[in-house]
């Protein structure tokens, strides 16, 4: 018996033991369909032809459109056919454009989006106020359910949640949920940053996915897109600067200043000398322009700055003592 035949027999044996991989099953299929039928086990050949046949059986195409239709009509609120067609048209157009700021109705759902240079304020059905930062999207329903209040967020928003002990307020940022009763905090989830970040201003918040932590005033937590670990640290004092327009630094390290600057001014900052990141800075700004801000920082620390398009370069030898 030649080696090739012995190898095939060994594979057939493992196939019957249920131990072959999907690739090996493919090898068996190729073998039994290419070899002369007299040389191959008929039952083996028959079953593989059967499986291939089943895989390629035509599907009821109308089922897909029926499913679409059923899902659209399943919401408790009855949507008129004309409205549906109008919505379908708006959706079709909007996917082409990319950003749209008009709230639109789709099966009881409302979406508010902001473009790259916009911020807006939304009042939810229960009185909760949401401040939406730029390049963000908030999805909620016209009326909340009986037992909870659910919204979906992409981007960044500051929430001032209306107090209601009976109905927890739940925010979905990807898979991470933030559960609140009545409190205020800043929540951030930009897909390119690959994490959800929350800074709690006041009150108590439960944050996480399958594992959750309880956070309180002055705490900050992050959860990465792909791991279960939640990191809890002290809150970033300027996490909601985009909304308050106040940047406040109390003996903050340049590392923190650079991070807050990048977020506030939407810039990329490069530091020529890593030692500069350990410098400390104290100062408070109210709605600063970029040059104003840079002038103060560089004067305090005796460093220099240069702005090139979307990048700012900070250079210097050491900090002023």
């Amino acid at each position: 018996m030649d080696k090739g035949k012995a190898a095939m027999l060994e594979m057939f044996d493992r196939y019957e033991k249920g131990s072959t991989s999907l690739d090996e099953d493919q090898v068996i299929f190729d073998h039994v369909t290419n070899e002369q039928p007299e040389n191959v086990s008929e039952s083996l050949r028959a079953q593989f032809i059967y499986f291939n046949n089943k895989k390629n059986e035509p599907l009821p195409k109308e089922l897909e459109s029926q499913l679409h239709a059923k899902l659209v009509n399943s919401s408790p609120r009855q949507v008129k056919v004309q409205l549906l067609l109008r919505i379908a048209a708006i959706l079709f157009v909007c996917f082409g454009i990319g950003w749209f700021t008009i709230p639109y109705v789709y099966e009881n759902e409302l979406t508010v989006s902001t473009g790259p240079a916009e911020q807006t304020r939304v009042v939810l059905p229960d009185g909760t106020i949401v401040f939406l930062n730029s390049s963000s999207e908030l999805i909620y329903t016209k009326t909340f359910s009986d037992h909870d209040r659910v919204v979906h967020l992409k981007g960044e928003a500051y929430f001032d949640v209306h107090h209601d002990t009976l109905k927890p307020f739940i925010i979905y940022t990807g898979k991470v949920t933030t559960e609140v009763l009545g409190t205020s905090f800043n929540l951030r989830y930009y897909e390119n940053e690959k994490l959800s970040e929350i800074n709690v201003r006041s009150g108590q918040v439960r944050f996480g996915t399958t594992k959750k932590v309880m956070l309180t005033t002055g705490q900050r937590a992050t959860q990465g897109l792909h791991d279960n670990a939640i990191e809890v640290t002290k809150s970033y004092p300027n996490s909601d600067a985009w909304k308050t327009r106040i940047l406040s630094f109390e003996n903050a390290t340049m590392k923190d200043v650079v991070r807050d600057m990048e977020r506030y001014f939407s810039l990329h900052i490069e530091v020529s000398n890593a030692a500069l990141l350990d410098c400390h800075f104290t100062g408070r700004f109210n709605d600063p322009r970029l040059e104003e801000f840079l002038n103060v920082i560089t004067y305090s620390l005796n460093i220099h700055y240069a702005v090139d398009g979307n990048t700012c370069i900070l250079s210097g030898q050491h900090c002023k003592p």
Partner: protein
Amino acid sequence: MHSEEFKKVLLPLWPSLYRFAQSLLNDKQEAEDCVQEIFLKLWSRKDSLDSIENVKAFSMQMTRNLCLDKIKARKRVVLDITRQVIGSGVDLQRQLEDKDLVDRIEAIMQQLPEQQRSLIHLRNIEGIEMKEIAEITGLSVEHARVTLSRARMAIRELYQKYYGQR
């Protein structure tokens, strides 16, 4: 999970769910109804879907459970196809066509117990990994392998028994 994500992630699963339902119920119309029911159920709990790691396995599991319930509730007797095919007097002189082989295996598949039939469908037809199959059927990975093995051996033995060929 909100509407758009639901449509992007769950709607494309319908062919796998339909094929699986069809293999269990052996009725195209019933399989279509089953798939529609499953999607309505998934839609009604779309908010909690985000916490599920593998929505495909979850949906297949739901499909299996729903189909098994329907089978139990069936009052009518399903025709014994086996006798039909075997007794159809296949002319042993002419070359067997692919269609004949397919009909034979179909008859044998109907004879297999549900679990063995499901394992064959999920592995040989849907091409799903054993770990996921274990999740869908509620068996351990090892138990799933053993069931798959039993099914494959049964196909060979029944083929030999009815058609006299190995």
